[in-house]
């Protein structure tokens, strides 16, 4: 029996949608026949604004591109301009940067965990994970002066050195997180409901994944080992011991497990960073930002963020301001072309978990 097709607008005001976007669904019964994403609700024109601002003034605004995880943006822009200019970054600053990146990855995964499981009706999970995430935000507040927007990493290094006793507090928090992970396993990852709702749902075809430009945990959830941290090690990732977990299956559960296992890796990496961190300066002064002429040139740099490969293409024309900064967020592909494809055939109730598992983050799609 052929069911009548109806149009369903999911979002922008919808509790299941990630962020502020809209998916226009054609459904037959409960099944999605066609999906069309509509974005632009969060378009702030970052790239245009950066062309109006000097290089240094761009740092406070890039972190706003991705709200749950601002640090990769700062790090990317910093590294892009450093590459154009040929500026060296002190070794200690590189370690601190990696620590901040991994802490923010951990925070982003905690938030994702809350969103993913909360969306499936496991209401205790967000209470735990978002509550625990706050301890990382406390650390960030102490380190950078801001809970959410850190504006900490910038060209030439980082803004301030670690505060006194920070290392101990980070280690304590990491110990706490490590002790919490088995609890999360029991609550979420072993949970029958969670498994039931995620295994075999939202499958990305392994063959297609590469061609579609899938990156990050969704790609590793297809069993493909691809991670900027090992492919093109930046900062000091080549000095750390870590593995890039891959899980076969390509479904929501596989992606969840990739993230779950990466959390362990992040905790271990943070410990290594703190252990190996050398002394010395943390900031190689850039010229006075009012007169900082960055030489002509361009650079494409990328970072592995919690949602995948973050790429920045920066062009300088030798003036005070960037000629162009193009931000390629992982959600750009995940949230539009990939989502539209894998939603076809899914149940309406699975749309939101699928979006969550892909890490669709509208502010980095439209910027």
């Amino acid at each position, binding site marked *: 029996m052929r069911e009548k097709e109806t149009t369903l607008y999911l979002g922008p005001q919808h*509790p299941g949608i990630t962020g*502020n976007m809209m998916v226009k669904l054609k459904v037959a019964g409960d099944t999605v026949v066609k999906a069309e994403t509509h974005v632009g609700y969060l378009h702030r*024109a970052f790239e245009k604004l950066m062309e109006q601002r000097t290089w240094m003034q761009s740092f406070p605004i890039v972190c*706003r591109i991705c*709200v*749950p995880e601002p640090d990769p943006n700062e790090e990317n822009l910093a590294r892009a301009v450093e590459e154009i200019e040929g500026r060296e970054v002190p070794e200690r600053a590189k370690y601190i940067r990696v620590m901040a990146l991994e802490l923010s990855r951990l925070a982003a995964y905690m938030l994702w965990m809350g969103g993913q499981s909360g969306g499936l009706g496991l209401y205790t999970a967000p*209470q735990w994970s978002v*509550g625990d995430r706050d301890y990382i935000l406390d650390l960030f507040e102490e380190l950078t002066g801001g809970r*959410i927007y850190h504006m900490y990493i910038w060209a030439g290094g980082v803004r301030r050195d670690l505060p006194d006793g920070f290392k101990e507090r980070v280690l304590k928090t990491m110990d706490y997180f490590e002790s919490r992970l088995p609890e999360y396993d029991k609550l979420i990852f072993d949970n029958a409901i969670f498994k039931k709702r995620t295994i075999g749902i939202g499958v990305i075809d392994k063959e297609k994944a590469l061609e579609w430009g899938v990156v990050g945990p969704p790609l590793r959830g297809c069993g493909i080992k691809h991670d900027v941290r090992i492919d093109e090690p930046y900062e000091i990732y080549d000095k750390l011991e870590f593995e890039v977990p891959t899980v076969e299956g390509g479904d929501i559960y596989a992606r969840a497990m990739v993230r779950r296992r990466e959390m362990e890796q992040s905790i271990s990496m943070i410990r290594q960073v703190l252990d190996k961190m050398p002394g010395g300066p943390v900031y190689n002064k850039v010229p006075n930002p009012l007169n900082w002429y960055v030489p002509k040139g361009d650079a494409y740099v990328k970072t592995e963020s919690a949602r995948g490969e973050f790429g920045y293409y920066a062009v300088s024309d030798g003036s005070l301001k960037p000629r162009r900064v193009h931000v390629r967020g992982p959600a750009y592909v995940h949230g539009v072309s990939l989502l539209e494809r894998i939603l076809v055939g899914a149940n309406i109730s699975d749309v939101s978990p699928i979006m969550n598992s892909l890490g669709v983050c509208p502010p980095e799609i439209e910027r």
Partner: protein
Amino acid sequence: MYNDKDAKKIVDIIQSYARKHSLWVVAYGTGCGAIEIPPTMTSRYDAERFGIRGSATPRQADVLLITGYLAVKTLKRVIRTYEQMQAPKFVMGFGSCTINGGMYWDSYNTINALDRYLPVDVFINGCMPRPEAVISGFIKLQQLISEGKAEGAEKYLKNLEWYRENQNKVIPNWNMPDYNW
């Protein structure tokens, strides 16, 4: 003996007491300030202590949080959401962007002063406001409600034309149903 006037007063007091302790927030993360809503609502800051909780639909909700900048495209949806909400309804503006444009003061796609387009009852300072500030905002709102000063919705209806004029100035294609029946 109480006369009618006193009775009305008592009803008002009971009403505003009930209102201020059950503020349901429409689940619409309009901007980046939405990232501080989960911590506020969950175990660490636990806003439910104040009777604040999420509501999936605008029609059941009392409070609309404008969490920061509004892109013009979102403004249109926000107006629609706001107009769908039933009185009593309140609007809270988060952070610098809702006050005078914040960081996006020169962006071609974000509005600068929210109170030109929607009646705002409480503004919270910050970029973005911390959970403490958010809770303070709610406390301020509760206080205004109990004092009977949170009258944004009435103001909106009274000055609808003025608001519409401002809204129409930035939204080029106004193809929306009118919910202000």
